[in-house]
């Protein structure tokens, strides 16, 4: 233990700084193909493991369980089910959001995984609710998860 301590609260110095930089991420081999399908064809794809028989959404380059390479891609449609959700009322900095945002995991029949996304155009949301993807207009798409504007209830 040191022989001296700071005893004057006005004397506690702090140094302000950051660790900020710009990042540009390539989407990866599987990611690039997945988002190009969304951007160009408006299709949500999954990838099937030849060994486990599991269809992964989003598609990956490999099966995380057995490490087989995933090369068979399948269209999984636009409709899914809310597996779970959260209604968020605050921004990252803790300030109140103008209106609550619903984040959810949407799962697709016969597949493993799903998509994390926002749900809009609804006052109610529940686990098991059927939802469908609403895409941005083709020219606004950038090969990004945000090319899906949001999910909305099918009914």
């Amino acid at each position: 233990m040191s022989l001296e301590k700071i005893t004057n609260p006005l004397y506690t110095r702090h140094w302000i700084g950051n660790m900020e930089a710009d990042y540009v991420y390539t989407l990866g081999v599987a990611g690039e193909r997945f988002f190009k399908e969304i951007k160009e064809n408006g299709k949500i794809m999954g990838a099937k493991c030849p060994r486990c028989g599991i269809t992964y959404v989003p598609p990956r380059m490999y099966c995380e369980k057995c490490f087989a390479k995933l090369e068979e891609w399948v269209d999984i449609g636009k409709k899914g089910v809310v597996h779970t959700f959260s209604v968020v009322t605050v921004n990252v900095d803790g300030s109140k959001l103008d209106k609550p945002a619903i984040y959810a995991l949407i799962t697709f029949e016969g597949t493993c995984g799903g998509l994390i996304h926002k749900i809009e155009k609804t006052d109610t949301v529940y686990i098991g609710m059927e939802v469908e993807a609403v895409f941005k207009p083709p020219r606004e798409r950038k090969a990004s998860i945000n090319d899906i504007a949001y999910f909305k209830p099918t009914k």
Partner: protein
Amino acid sequence: MFGKKRVAIVGAGVTLFRRNIKETGKELSYEAVKMALNTAGMELKDMQSVVMGSAPDAFDGVHMKGEYLADGAGAHCKPYTRVFVGGGTGVFTPLAGWWHVASGQFDTCLVVCEEKMSSCYPHPQFAFTTIFDPILERPVGMNLIWIFALEMNRYMHKHNLKKEDIALVSVKNKRNALDNPIAQLAAEITVEDVLKSEIMAWPVQRLDVSPTSDGAAALILASEDVAKEVTDNPVWIDGVGWCIDSTQWTNRDLYYPDYVEYAARMAYKMAGIRNPPKEIDVAEPYDPFDYKELHHIEGLLLCKKGEAPKLTREGVTQRDGDLPTCPSGGLLGCGNPIAAAGLMKVSEIFWQLRGEAGKRQVPCDPRTGVAQAWGDLMQYGSVIVLRR
């Protein structure tokens, strides 16, 4: 060594090293692991534990990137740990794999190193500004290259070296890399070329430096029993060593890496090596800068202080010399995806000891090899001794 377990390397994999690679860090890790598993004739389910090594999160641009990379590293539902000692990580990670197996806790351990430096835009240099003390050093406007330049200058001053002496390392390693299919900057260059290249921060010039890169590498470690089951040709980890010097790098004489010497002594003691220059047949000292290889040859006690340039001049460190260093082409020739580059060095020694290095094979029929990496603020040494 009664009661102590021996650990073998039974497989290795490495991706291309390039300035930008399309694969995500996860995908790069997967490719390296898949190759390592194939070379060992094993499957992911055979791996009981996984260790990840990767340099700052500020390169890949993901907080807790060890967690992010886990599935690509093959860690799904497995015991998984990331270790991190700056630039020394690549050689340190197999040391962590070693204790997973040597402890008797696991029969196998998958060792993975990954770096995707290109995510930091426009240049990974930026991430390096935050390796310095925020109060005393960052305000001076520190640049990573400076700290190497300061060390290089001190080393040259203390031993009265010329840049010509040092440039020979770059010439050798870039030439060695011509035989390495993963290499990013393999080239036939001359000392003249190095001396004429652009001055970055005197005495560091463009061709004294390894590039920034994307890449991944992986090793499969196994206990003695498993190793003997899967291969006739295991390579044993017989010595491990690591050491860190004080944070106060401006209070130390940078001309000599004490921390590398301490790490080497630890590893040699474990391996029972008393006379390193005589007993070590091939070495992969860490060479992110050309002078660093010399610095590290000395720290590894492969010659006396200040004598590494002489060895280089006399051709001793060439592939066909008495003590070949960086037969892989090193970081200067292959590229420097930090942690992956360090693990690439370990895998090079692995292939050399197995006699499978092809055009890069050193002719001396090596039995014992050493790989080493350096890290932190001129501060970290990690050393591994391998035997066949």
